[in-house]
């Protein structure tokens, strides 16, 4: 017994080391920088000075909220159709959904940009058809579309999984008790797949609120999101402290929202 636990401890060691090196240590650095000034003295100033970024916070929050809601509105029906499809169709749809996830987000964003660019493919097609050319890049819509395009699969997958795992007997029981299709969906299927919805929302909301390249590439530089701000601060040694403070606040905000969402899911007390 003892030998085995020693062995397993040895086996755990690399992961532990990894976590300390790449998760705990950077966090400590973030906290350290957030509460120190240029000379290394303790200060709250970095945090208090953040009020000047409140506009950026609000914009990031609203962009990512809109993207998350639209992802949910597209993602749930999509996941539902996939779960209802025949086994063969289901597997094809699943591969189609996962395929983009195997390509770097950066490359996907670039390709979307090439497609939608003011002189890009879609635009020139429109012009050929005698329609006005597209001026989409540089709008709020483009940034939000980028978020949706990049993160939609992360909404669909967890919802799809919870739908597939859901026992058909619950839906049958609902029909037995008088529910037609829509009533079955809203009274039974939706509440019982809430855990999938919560993880989908989390997996879209978190990367959306902290993204920087989407806004840079598709926003044409006109939208400065929180991610962009943090990135800029860290490109200059002098502003590390502000960058760390913003990151810390972001982290706390995200943790808080995760906590709230998980409480929401817990309340349902779902056993699948």
């Amino acid at each position, binding site marked *: 017994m003892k030998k085995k636990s020693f062995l397993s401890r040895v086996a755990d060691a690399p992961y532990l080391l990894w976590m300390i090196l790449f998760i705990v240590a950077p966090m400590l650095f973030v906290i350290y920088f957030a509460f120190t000034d240029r000379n290394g003295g303790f200060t709250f100033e970095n945090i208090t000075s953040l009020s000047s970024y409140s506009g950026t916070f609000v914009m990031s929050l609203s962009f990512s909220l809109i993207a998350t809601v639209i992802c949910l509105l597209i993602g749930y029906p999509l996941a539902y159709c996939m779960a209802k499809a025949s086994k063969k169709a289901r597997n094809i749809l699943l591969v189609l959904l996962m395929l983009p996830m195997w390509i770097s987000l950066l490359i996907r964003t670039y390709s979307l940009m090439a497609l939608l660019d003011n002189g890009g493919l879609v635009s020139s097609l429109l012009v050929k058809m005698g329609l006005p050319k597209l001026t989409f890049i540089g709008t709020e819509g483009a940034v939000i579309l980028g978020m949706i395009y990049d993160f939609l699969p992360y909404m669909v997958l967890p919802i799809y999984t919870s739908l597939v795992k859901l026992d058909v*007997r619950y839906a*049958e029981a609902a029909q037995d008790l008088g529910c037609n299709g829509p009533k079955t969906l809203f009274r039974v299927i939706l509440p*019982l797949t809430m855990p999938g919805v919560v993880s989908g929302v989390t997996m879209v909301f978190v990367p959306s609120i902290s993204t920087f390249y989407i806004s840079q590439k598709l926003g044409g530089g006109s939208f400065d999101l929180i991610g962009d701000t943090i990135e800029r601060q860290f490109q200059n040694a002098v502003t590390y402290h502000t960058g760390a403070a913003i990151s810390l606040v972001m982290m706390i905000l995200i943790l808080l929202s995760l906590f709230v969402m998980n409480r929401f899911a817990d309340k349902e007390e*779902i056993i699948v």
Partner: protein
Amino acid sequence: MNKNVLIRLGGISKSYDGEVVLDNIDLTIHDKEFITLLGPSGCGKTTTLRIIGGFETPDAGDVYFEDKRINDLPPYKRQVNTVFQRYALFPHLNVFDNVAFGLRVNKTPDAEIREKVKEMLELVNLKGFERRKVNTLSGGQQQRVAIARALVNRPKVLLLDEPLAALDYKLRKDMQVELKNIQHKTGITFIFVTHDQEEALSMSDTVVVMSKGKIQQIGTPTDIYNEPVNAFVADFIGESNILDGVMPEDVKVKFAGQTFVCVDGGFDKNEPVDVVIRPEDVDVVKPEAGMLVGLVTGVTFKGDYYEIIVDVKGFKWMLETSDFVGEGETIGLSIDPDAIHVMKKSEYSGLFGDYSSFSDELDKLSDATEEVEAE
């Protein structure tokens, strides 16, 4: 029991992937009847129930409800409610909300919902459980919630798919009585599914014995037990000794090398038949007084009687006797004419009714696997 026909199945057939699961089922169900579909696991009981509930469509044949064809009516429009095999209570709702589910869907006023749910929970002995989460309930309690959830909608028909299979023996017995009471009080037609013959006989007005997707026999519990139509029914319902015989003439039957007087007739001259004799219908007598003589090869104490295996010319009989007989003893068998039941030969002839490979352990093992499958 009132004689209005409520549901009629006409020539129902159903296959899955080319495998015939239901083969030309004809069945009439009357108002206020307690009818039981009985048969071994996999014989098509659940499929029949699902066709009545509207969850499956038959490949051929029609389903009539009060003389209207309802093949294409979706489940939510049928005046039928189901107690599912493993209850399928909604895990996101408490007991009250589970029971109130159907009423809410039908937009019943709140006050009326409270009234009806209360009444229903009293009926199933679950007063005070309103706020409990369904996954904190015992199997028996969940089962009652499932019954209340279905009955509160006052369906014309309640479908119950092996509702007692997951309960332990004692609770199962209690629930059998309780279900029967509930059926009496509510006057709702019950279509009950079980693979337990004892349960079927003790609860039902009508028993439908099924095997391999076909109905073997429909009748009252007494009819089914006393007048089984073939070797399958005789073997499945209770214990039976089933012997090869011939009918030389009416009320005469030849088996075990001798001719006996019986009460059956209407067969061709010298027609080969199956002869059923129940273990409790044979009298154990002194060898010299017996119509047949055999050697006792096994004795099992059963509480109020002994179950013995007797070898008569190579065929092993099962008998019940209240007097002890020892293994290795020679005994006589005496059989009254009305203890002999003669049946036509069927595809099941020769498959059942000989106790030469019989052992209690085997019987229990096969029961246990059946219950696991039923899960």
